[in-house]
């Protein structure tokens, strides 16, 4: 069903989109969907959506895993490995180079100012993505209370967050949420 050039086309496309995935991989996901589902027909929309839901719910490098499943579908294990490298390789290189550059000037006065301006905005964004996640996860007052309780515990105690995640999972599993 897929031509011999399919793995190369997929890998090349992933190399490209991962280099421009500003704001994380979810921002280029619609593009990957078009490429994989609409342009090449390697899988159906439903299959793509299932992969996304699964990647979101297992721990680990979830977007890299998701692309590996797409690669698997096209070319088995080598496809999965190639997709993984294409997804994290370019960003890693860019991160490393820019960190080196940033670090070289870490005590420069201009960088102190950039830091003062930049960090609050980014932290607002982090809190916002927590809220966006909460909106999707909080289906009623019980789950909302769980989100608030987890945030409070994290803020006032140094308790290992794993206990909170386990408790959340147990409460959910018992059907209490």
């Amino acid at each position, binding site marked *: 069903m897929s031509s011999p050039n399919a793995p190369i086309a997929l890998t090349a496309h992933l190399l490209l989109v991962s280099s421009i995935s500003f704001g994380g991989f979810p921002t280029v996901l619609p593009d990957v969907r078009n490429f994989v589902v609409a342009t090449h027909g390697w899988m159906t929309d439903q299959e793509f959506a299932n992969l996304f839901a699964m990647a979101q719910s297992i721990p680990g490098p979830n977007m890299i895993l998701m692309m590996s499943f797409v690669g698997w579908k096209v070319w088995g294990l080598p496809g999965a490995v190639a997709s993984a490298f294409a997804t994290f390789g370019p960003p890693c290189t860019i991160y490393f180079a820019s960190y080196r550059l940033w670090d070289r000037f870490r005590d420069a006065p201009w960088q102190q100012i950039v830091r003062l301006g930049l960090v609050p905005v980014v*932290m607002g964004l982090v809190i916002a993505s927590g809220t966006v996640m909460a909106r999707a*996860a909080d289906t009623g007052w019980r789950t909302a209370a769980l989100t608030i309780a987890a945030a409070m515990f994290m803020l006032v105690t140094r308790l290992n967050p794993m206990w909170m995640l386990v408790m959340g999972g147990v409460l959910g599993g018992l059907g209490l949420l």
Partner: protein
Amino acid sequence: MIDIAERPKHAVSLAALFTAFLIVSLCGFGGGIVWARRIAVERRRWITDRDFADIVSLCQFMPGPNIVGIAVCIGARMRGVLGTIAAISGFLIIPWATGLSLGLLYLEHAHLPILRNILGGIAATAAGLLIATGIRLLMPHRRRPAALLFAALAFGLITFAGLPLLAVLFSLVPLSIALASIENARAR
């Protein structure tokens, strides 16, 4: 480059970086940043909250998964290129292999209600943890009204106005930096 000599780069082993990011990866439901901060700042005390907030902010401006960027930067900070490779390998290899195998299994059982309920509870908790991590990293700036204003704006524009991330970043950050430089000039 005086500051380089001050840093205890040799104190952290490559194995420790590997393990730390293996844990970050395996625990990172929804938000690996929660665990990266927990381990690198709170437990191991490799870097301060200030440095961690810097790294997170830098990564926001680069393409790719931010948590991968955090692993790259902390690895580079502690041990240079080798540190980066150790951190990234820890983050990726084992979780990737397990995830790939479990994923196929999971897809077959994704419809089971109990599995969905458990994941629902975990997702709700994970959201709370992420919110708390953002608040904690904002704490060093709590006495600066401008910082709180821009944090609130960024939060509001994403949460309530639903604007795309990049639009928010590129409109707020220049303003925020401009205001910080005025603040800084006055303080002198």
